């Protein structure tokens, strides 16, 4: 997780919380917004697929998202030790909100399998509060409080 071990900048950004706290806080945010990690990962994967195979050309998707998929050689190991994931970042700029996202295959894996969305300040953080606006996600389950 730390800089310089598996990746140059690590996965935690400038977040000094414990890993478990990062995961639990984001999980609670998801519950509050009635979303789940699989839903976010699937949407991001879909956007990545629509920008892929274009030899790194930027493409406008849904007349809203500017997407560029980088092709880089090699793989990044998961800090959980559950595999290697092809490099290649996806950069998304949302023309509606002006917000940006960056992710790769490992980001989606960490989110979906380990509930880890990245530490604060990490370039690859997919903040559930931010992503919901960018992706116009709708709740996938009933609010248990209702």
């Amino acid at each position, binding site marked *: 997780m730390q*800089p*310089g071990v598996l990746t*140059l900048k690590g996965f935690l950004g400038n977040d000094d919380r414990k890993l478990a706290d990062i995961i639990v806080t984001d999980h609670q945010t998801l519950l509050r917004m009635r979303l789940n990690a699989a839903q976010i990962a699937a949407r991001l994967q879909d956007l990545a697929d629509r920008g892929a195979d274009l*030899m790194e050309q930027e493409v406008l998707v849904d007349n809203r998202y500017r997407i560029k*998929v980088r*092709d880089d*050689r*090699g793989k990044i190991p998961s800090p959980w*030790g559950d*595999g290697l994931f092809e490099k290649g970042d996806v950069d998304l700029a949302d023309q509606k909100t002006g917000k940006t996202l960056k992710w790769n295959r490992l980001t989606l894996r960490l989110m979906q399998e380990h509930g880890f969305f990245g530490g604060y300040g990490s370039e690859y953080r997919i903040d559930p509060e931010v992503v919901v606006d960018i992706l116009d996600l709708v709740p996938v389950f009933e609010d248990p409080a209702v």
Partner: protein
Amino acid sequence: MTPIITAVLVLSALSGLLTLLLLVAEFFFANYGECIIDVNNGEKTFKVEGGANLLTSLASQKLFLPSGCGGRGSCGTCKCRVLDGGGPLLPTETPYLTDEEQKTAVRLSCQVKVRNNVKIEVPKELLSIKEFETVIESITDCTHDIKGLRFRLPEGETIKFKAGQFVNLLSKPYDDVKEGTSRAYSISSAPSDNKAIELVVRYVPNGMVTTYVFKHLKQGDKASLIGAFGEFFLRDSGREIVCIAGGSGLAPIRSIILDMIDRGISNRKATFFFGAVSQRDLYYVEEFKAIEKEHPWFRFVPALSKDDSDHPYQKGLITDVVARNYGDMKDLEAYLCGSPGMIDACCKVLAGKGMPVDRIYFDKFS
């Protein structure tokens, strides 16, 4: 409820303590003494001090198994057959081994501890892999994010490799990176140029080794290379070939073309399609144009996918450019180097034009 939680916590603490005690005891008291590693039934034998893992022990004897993660057990590439003395298969290995591999004694060498004499089997080619302590002769800016590097081998040493193969470049610790690590790069020079190695490296944002190359390495520095590895090389079929590459994927194709010239292979037509986004992503164009002029069997086709300026190159995605340059491709063979996405897209085009899939060779950047 509380007694159950207390019991679980006490048991966990006891297990942890026992594990810690075992590790401490092993560190201080375990002495495995000298162990012999027998490679390929006596083809090579090494005497090593027991206690280290097999990958490290072999590397200390200059036998290098490919490893993408430096022995952290996370890449699953340092496989070899351990015929005797390897101990039981560990849970840390099983995710990386197929059922067939497990049945045939294939192990992850980074997870096997050398505690006694060990018999192993490795592919014969690995026995000729060497580590080279080189000096950087030159670093050239090829494009805004690609550098060409030339490494001079030590006096009297030469490297033997097949055009298309790769080496591992070892980085040294810098900034937050406390340990050296390694990454694979295709050799871009010809096998005949065997006192040096040329590589083409594209900057990967936040990449540990490319950042080292781009921000820390300079001419005259020492650098370690291990190799050569890989199954991507020109087959001696006599068929016309189509090469397709993008970005730093140009490297092995350049090596193959230079090797064809050196070996006087002029009876095989070869066309090299190089895909880039815009003119600023093109490099080595003059060199390939000069080869084209001198060797009628070779054709160089750079293509730009998004450049509206007035340029002499073909326009469009490289897959479209290849498709419109050929009719039936059933008698050709292809050599591709680039990202997985590019390779997959090219394979579809080539197969759609009749090229048998077993004649499409690629280095998928992974």
